[in-house]
């Protein structure tokens, strides 16, 4: 890490001066004691709205793909080839470059155990890690922090609101671009005192102040800039307005990509700090493409690619200690619908990226798009349970014991076979 700029120092010393331990920094004591596992990092990128796997990693070599997809098929000559069947969408250039180095793989037919095709139920199941909806109230990344030892491993979500995947017993940090607190230190101290008896606000506020201390060091130059929001729908690219959309709205796609890259780099900036968060979650919205799918996914995927590129470059040498999983609540119908889009489906694609990945082909089997192979004659049939993939990453990469994974992190998941051989 470079020498800290003085504004950061003053803020940190300010926080320290009022009795706040900047525990991210204290956490570094564990780094050497616990061996190589203690530097391992994991990022989960949730693409909300039902990301279309058949566009992310189009199976252009599958004989049924072009026919089923019609106008929304990714043309084979434009797709970025992975193997004889699969390619990546043309906007995923950074991901493709990583894939060629063996640092990105696809799981093209993966799904959570939920089959209701409801966004909200499926996101619940994805984030709670339960076998069915309403099975568990907390998020599986939060329970991961719990089993790895609270305060030993830090978690961070990027966004103004806290996503379910990181909600639970352990107070995870959260951060989004914007000015921090830098008034007199008296007010935060008084408030901390008032919040002492408040189980919700107390821990959240304390963690917020700590994260503030890290934020400036985490920002890459130039700092991510949120375009001032003025209920300005007209000047924004479509589908960038969701509350959870952390790619700041920008007047044009190029600026949007820059903002997305910068966001990825900032998250990386948090994670490379000694004692910084080793587990992080970030959400991207706008994947519910019932109509106008081609244009919408061109821009969404270019932002996703930029976030991942920012993460990769920002992590630098730590990229080899990091696994990133990009996932969604469900895939979309194999056939194009009547309005240039696709409706809610089942199997989709997950992307797995990281400097320490083992080379390999697709993760899980490809059921093909033959009519008889489709789930309910409609969707990509899942060959893999998302929980199996997450368990594999947590076990092999993060060093979480299998018993804890199947007892606490993903209860009732013994049937979801753990993916092995990833790292």
């Amino acid at each position, binding site marked *: 890490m470079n020498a800290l700029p003085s504004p950061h120092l003053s803020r940190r010393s300010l926080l320290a001066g009022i009795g706040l331990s900047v525990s991210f920094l204290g956490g570094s004591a564990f780094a050497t004691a616990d061996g190589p596992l203690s530097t391992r990092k994991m990022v989960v990128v949730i693409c909300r709205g039902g990301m279309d796997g058949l566009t992310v990693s189009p199976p252009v070599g599958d004989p049924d793909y072009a026919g089923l997809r019609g106008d929304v098929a990714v043309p084979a000559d434009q797709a970025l080839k992975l193997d004889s069947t699969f390619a990546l969408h043309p906007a995923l250039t950074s991901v493709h470059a990583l894939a060629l180095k063996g640092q990105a793989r696809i799981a093209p037919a993966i799904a959570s155990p939920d089959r209701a095709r409801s966004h909200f139920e499926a996101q619940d199941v994805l984030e709670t890690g339960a076998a069915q909806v309403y099975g568990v109230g907390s998020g599986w990344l939060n329970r991961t922090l719990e089993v790895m030892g609270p305060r030993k491993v830090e978690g961070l979500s990027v966004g103004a609101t806290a996503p379910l995947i990181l909600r639970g017993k352990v107070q995870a940090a959260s951060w989004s671009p914007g000015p921090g607190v830098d008034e007199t230190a008296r007010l935060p101290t008084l408030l901390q*005192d008032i919040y002492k008896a408040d189980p919700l606000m107390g821990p959240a506020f304390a963690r917020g102040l700590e994260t503030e201390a890290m934020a400036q060091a985490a920002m890459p130059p130039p700092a991510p800039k949120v375009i001032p929001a003025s209920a300005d729908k007209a000047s924004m690219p*479509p589908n960038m307005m969701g509350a959870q959309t952390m790619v700041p709205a920008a007047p044009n796609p190029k600026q949007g990509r820059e903002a997305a890259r910068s966001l990825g780099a900032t998250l990386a900036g948090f994670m490379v700090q000694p004692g910084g968060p080793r587990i992080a979650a970030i959400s991207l919205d706008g994947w519910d493409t019932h109509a106008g799918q081609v244009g919408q996914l061109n821009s969404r995927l270019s932002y996703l690619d930029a976030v991942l590129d920012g993460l990769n470059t920002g992590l630098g040498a730590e990229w080899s200690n990091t696994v990133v999983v990009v996932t969604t609540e469900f895939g979309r119908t194999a056939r194009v619908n009547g309005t240039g889009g696709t*409706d809610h489906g089942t199997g989709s694609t997950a992307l797995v990226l990281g400097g320490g990945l083992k080379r390999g082909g697709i993760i899980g089997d490809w059921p093909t798009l033959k009519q008889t192979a489709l789930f309910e004659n409609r969707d990509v049939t899942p060959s893999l349970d998302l929980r199996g993939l997450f368990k594999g990453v947590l076990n092999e990469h993060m060093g979480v014991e299998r018993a804890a994974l199947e007892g606490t992190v993903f209860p009732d998941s013994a049937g979801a076979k753990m993916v092995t051989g990833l790292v």
Partner: protein
Amino acid sequence: MSLPPTDMMAAIAATRFGLGARPGEIAAARSDPRGFLTAQIRPQGADQPQAGAEGSAQRLSDFRDYQMQKRDAKAAQGEVGGNPKPDPLKDAKKMLRDDTGGDFLARAQLASTTDAAFRERWALFWANHFTVSATKQITGTVIGPFEQEAIRPHVFGRFEDLLVASSTHPAMLLYLDQAQSIGPDSKAGAYMQRRAKGGGLNENLAREIMELHTVGVEAGYSQADVTEFARAMTGFSIGRPQEERAFQFLFRDNAHEPGARTVMGRRYGQDGQAQALAVMRDLAASPQTARHVATKLAVHFVGDDPPPALVARLEKSFNDSGGRLDDLARALVNAPESWDPAPAKFKMPYEFAISTWRSVGGQPQAIGKLAPVLTGLGQKPFSAPSPKGWPEEAQVWCAPDALIKRLRFSEAFAAQAADRLDPVEFAQSTLGARLTPPVAKAVARAETRREAMALLLMSPEFQRR
């Protein structure tokens, strides 16, 4: 369950049922806190933020003009190969933006100043239940008109009427892609197929009506039910510019899938739009809808994990009255469970901001004073993340980063407003009996008026309701 003392009930009336106390509001509610609320229920529905406001047809027409201009500008650019100044285009864009910002500001000003804040919260609940979000460029400009035309007039009427008004409004038809859905075996569908033009069913709105607006996802319907309802809804569309019902709801018989449909075990043999309306009538009258709506209301008004007895009372009112929403509002006010003194709800950013302005008897003067705050706190104006609307849970909104941003806002607000206030009086008029001794003490001991005010705005009892 017994009720708390009148002082506490007055504070609850203004903060939990309303949008935060304006100076004097708690005192006004004291003589009869329940009557203070039930007097706000009225047959003509909620207040309209803007008198004589532009309707959705005008807005959609403006939007079309903008699109045409954009197309022309693009074509012109192609012809000369240069870089013409698209000034008229910029103006058109700015107009759309100002319209949307104006709608939101007017709504926030109404919320900040109204004496009938329970009525406004009730309207906001239903606007969120039938969410239209600005996730598409075109929907942003019609959310204000949607609330004005489809939601506000019906919030104390019958649930079924509200459902139909929402499901036939151009804003909803655009937001959930219904306007383009075509029955594959309809005349229009056959024509499209002959021309290999694509075109067909889109099930988005049908699914969300079942899942979010009426029976709920636990109701046990199948994919086939969703598809059948989507077929019944084909033809629900919007008039083209040259048509008589330009930019308004239009039923297109030639896009309607012919034949009888079966939804959740019932057969619907009606012709034309009567078919989907009959399905909606049954969905609206379903006991599962009663349960779904009752639960959502209890969660919104009383607690993320609401008392089952309250849900049962609301459910009974919905069933007994045939979905009368005025009865439902009265049932909510009259239920003793609604008056638990412990503030269980963490305010959403909009509620927090509005209650802050109310506390000083003020209102936001410009959209630029409000929108950046809400966006920073995760609740961008008119931009709920999905058709499900804004989430309710405290854990979502009480994120570490969000608290830091609330503190920033409170400090900035206090810097503008505190110097005219007596902190102790302010604390009393804002929270009444809800003010706790530790906070009262901290406010009284503050070094400056600003510090006192920021402390109060950030206090656990002001952040909750």
